[in-house]
């Protein structure tokens, strides 16, 4: 981190361009997408044809001449005539007007209603939100076409009116989208920070909220335009469009009457509708990509395996770790890499070697991004499917873990290798009782009956210090506290008497008093069952509490490995020393405020400490 030098005026950054650069970039990204360009070209062409309709045909789209019914293509009628002798080309052109105007009405009405109501409901919440949401739910319970039929029955056939009403019916879609994005932004800490910084509501809205609301709304508009065209065509097909107005849906209706005499009539309006709606939809997707709005789940390209691919043998490396007689887990030269979007690979674990003996607790310590969790998950075979893993050696109790089939790995996992996750609440399936989640692996691995598994689960729950095992057994995860859930997860990890336990930051999410109890539990269970343990953590206090040996990781490598006592007493590597030096436990307290403040009696000559040289 460099100190500011007087190196001339800071170049860029005109300040008022909040999201403008991002927006401009989005337009450029959109225009670089060939699909978007084709869609745009088509839509512009339709709009231009609709506008210039009187110049492009001299025929009236509504004048029927029975004598010229079903005329073929050519002559005065480039696309022929329909069942009552109206010119098809003219109908197509004027129908485009009807369709585009109708869809613009829908979008205008739904935005006019949905956008302000959504912003207000999401930002202010309270009573307005309650009322607006209720109205939205009411509108969403109505079948759109039935409502349109009522309106048309009452006010007579009018496409414009029907589209305006449809705009009202579809407005809840806009409302809900806007409301939920506003609520999401509102809960962001940066909006709180803006409020504390003294920004007015109007300014927060303009600077922080609207920029987040606009992209998804733009995408939704492009879809609404398509939906409006389809609904309008449906109404016209039913014969409920405005009288004496050319429309694509009306053309379809006429084609339907003459489907045996002249099936070709179906083609033109169908093509016009399908291509235009597709263009809107593709434009929407392209906008989504260009604006970088998440929401569309990425394409699943390859088979999404539930298991990580097997570890590959890394050839040519001489095992560096000495053979330990009672070794339970041996890793040698473990490498983990991920493919990058550029097609190369990024390695995150660069040849990790370690050994865990039966009954030994190994602490794997490092800061975020050091590769400690990746190493642990590699052993469990639980890395994401795109991970590439290789090792010169990787054995568990003599079994080579490399190239193990998913089925064989499943026989080890849960049965002989247990896993304790970090975050207790997110690691229990919310839809099943704790009891069923505890008994399922036992029944699967140990072949226990339902009753046997239940008895054993209750014993386990009791063992991990849960006061009322029967109640917790029947509970769902949301009914127990975080500390309790972590005990349940520990019970699950040891339920099949594993030989090795892998704990990934098992106490990081817990309060310190709960952490102490959970660490006590892990220590006791480990001693009781003589398990080997790999404990992944960033906290040297936790290491000091439970670990026999420690491996310090940094940037995917183990920089130092030693028995715990020795590592704390005499750290060898500079990085280890830096980490241990960063712990605040032994720094002196800052002391009372000198010279000023509330408590003159507390004025003390305590020096203001700062934790060592930076």
């Amino acid at each position, binding site marked *: *981190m460099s100190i500011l030098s007087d190196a001339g005026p*800071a170049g860029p950054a005109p300040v008022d361009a909040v999201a403008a650069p991002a927006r401009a970039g989005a337009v450029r990204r959109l225009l670089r997408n060939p699909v978007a360009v084709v869609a745009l070209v088509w839509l512009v062409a339709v709009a231009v044809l609709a506008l210039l309709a009187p110049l492009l045909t001299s025929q009236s789209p509504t004048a029927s001449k029975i004598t010229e019914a079903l005329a073929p293509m050519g002559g005065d009628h480039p696309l022929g005539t329909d069942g009552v002798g109206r010119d098809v080309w003219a109908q197509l052109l004027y129908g485009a007007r009807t369709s585009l105007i109708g869809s613009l009405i829908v979008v205008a009405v739904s935005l006019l209603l949905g956008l302000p109501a959504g912003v207000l409901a999401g930002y202010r919440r309270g009573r307005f939100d309650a009322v607006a949401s209720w109205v939205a739910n009411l509108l969403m319970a109505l079948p759109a076409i039935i409502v349109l039929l009522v309106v048309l029955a009452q006010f007579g056939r009018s496409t414009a009116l029907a589209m305006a009403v449809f705009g009202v019916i579809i407005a809840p879609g806009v409302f809900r989208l806007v409301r939920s994005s506003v609520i999401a932004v509102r809960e*962001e800490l940066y909006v709180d920070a803006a409020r504390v910084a*003294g920004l007015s509501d109007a300014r927060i809205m303009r600077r922080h909220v609207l920029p987040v609301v606009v992209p998804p709304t733009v995408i939704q508009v492009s879809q609404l335009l398509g939906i409006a065209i389809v609904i309008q065509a449906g109404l016209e097909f039913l014969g409920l469009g405005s009288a004496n107005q050319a429309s694509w849906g009306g053309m379809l209706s006429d084609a339907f009457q003459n489907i045996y005499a002249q099936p070709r009539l179906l083609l033109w309006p169908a093509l016009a509708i399908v291509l235009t709606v597709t263009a809107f939809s593709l434009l929407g997707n392209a906008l989504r990509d260009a604006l970088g709005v998440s929401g569309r789940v990425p394409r699943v390209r390859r088979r999404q395996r539930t298991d990580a691919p097997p570890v590959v043998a890394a050839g040519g490396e001489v095992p560096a770790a000495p053979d330990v007689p009672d070794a339970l887990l041996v890793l040698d030269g473990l490498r983990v890499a991920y493919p990058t979007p550029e097609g190369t690979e990024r390695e995150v674990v660069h040849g990790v070697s370690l050994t865990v003996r039966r009954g030994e607790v190994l602490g794997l310590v490092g*800061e975020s991004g050091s590769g400690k969790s990746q190493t642990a998950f590699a052993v469990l075979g639980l890395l994401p499917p795109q991970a590439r893993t290789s090792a010169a050696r990787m054995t568990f109790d003599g079994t080579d873990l490399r190239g193990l089939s998913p089925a064989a790995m499943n026989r080890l996992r849960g049965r002989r290798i247990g896993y304790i996750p970090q975050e207790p609440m997110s690691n229990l399936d919310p839809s099943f009782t704790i009891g069923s989640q505890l008994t399922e692996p036992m029944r699967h691995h140990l072949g226990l009956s339902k009753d046997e598994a239940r008895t054993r689960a209750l014993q386990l729950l009791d063992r991990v210090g849960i006061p009322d095992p029967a109640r917790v057994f029947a509970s769902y995860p949301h009914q127990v506290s975080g500390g309790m859930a972590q005990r349940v997860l520990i019970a699950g990890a040891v339920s099949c008497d594993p030989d090795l336990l892998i704990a990934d930051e098992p106490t990081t999410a817990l309060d310190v*008093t709960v952490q102490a109890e959970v660490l006590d539990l892990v220590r006791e269970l480990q001693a009781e069952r003589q398990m080997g343990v790999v404990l992944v953590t960033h906290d040297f206090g936790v290491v*000091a509490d439970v670990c026999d040996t420690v491996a310090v990781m940094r940037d995917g490598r183990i920089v130092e490995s030693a028995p715990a006592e020795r590592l704390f007493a005499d750290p060898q590597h500079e990085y280890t020393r830096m980490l241990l030096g960063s*712990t*605040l436990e032994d720094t002196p307290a800052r*002391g009372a405020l000198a010279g000023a403040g509330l408590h003159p009696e507390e004025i003390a000559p305590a020096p203001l400490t700062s934790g060592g040289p930076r």
Partner: protein
Amino acid sequence: MSAQPMSAESTSTVSAPLLTVDRLVVDYPVTGWRRPPVRVLKGISLEIGAGETLGLVGESGSGKTTLGRAILGLAPVTGGEIRLGGRVVSNLGRRERRALSRDVQVVFQDPYTSLNPAMTVGDILTEPLLVTGSSRSDAQRRVRELLDQVHLPADAVSRLPREFSGGQRQRIAIARALTRDPKLVVCDEPVSALDLSTQARVLDLFIEIQERTGVAYLFVTHDLSVVRHISHRVAVMYRGELVETGDAAAVTTAPDHPYTRRLLLAAPVPDPRRQAERRAERHRFAAAQAAG
């Protein structure tokens, strides 16, 4: 580097505390029909002097974050009072509350969601200045000073938050809090999301800024060692109540209240031998507590 003008209060010895929280009660409504609200703060009283750091320690659900948010005007005050320099600031109208933003600022825990990802660092830092009528060139000059104060390079202004590490983002958040020379900064677990080595450096930055500008901190955290490092005084919260308040060294080494003792004994020491002793002591203490 220009010397920061010290705020008037910090140069003279003050008689009235900077911030007084007086029997503060905060209730949160519970969603659901006719459910009674939950009382999160049950009558909290504390004071912070100018230039002082009060460490507020507690576990999750103790109400420590809510207290910070109430002082910031982000949580509803049900009862009691918050006074800043003698003036009551609880339940102010929106406009008055905004005027208060000069004096009270915030640094949040999560450096990832506390900065708008779509705005450049320059925009984030000038925003509080521009809304109060600073000229653009003044604001930009001030931003350069601030970046210097938090030890970030000047070219940071044109970059987006995602280009920075967690520790650097927290420096940006600190700079934002300092833009208008506040008298009090509420720091809500500002180093909890950071790596160990980064944590120490950011804490030192907090101390350095306080020594230079005389700002006061309400430093909310769950970590006794952090609180000990940065606080002049410490207040311990448990289930919406303050159980102990006192000198930082005293509270963090020889606490009076059993809960504070429990908290202290539960925090593991990075030294196997001493940790074994502390563990044994914790077990003895727990047994004694259980015995009554």
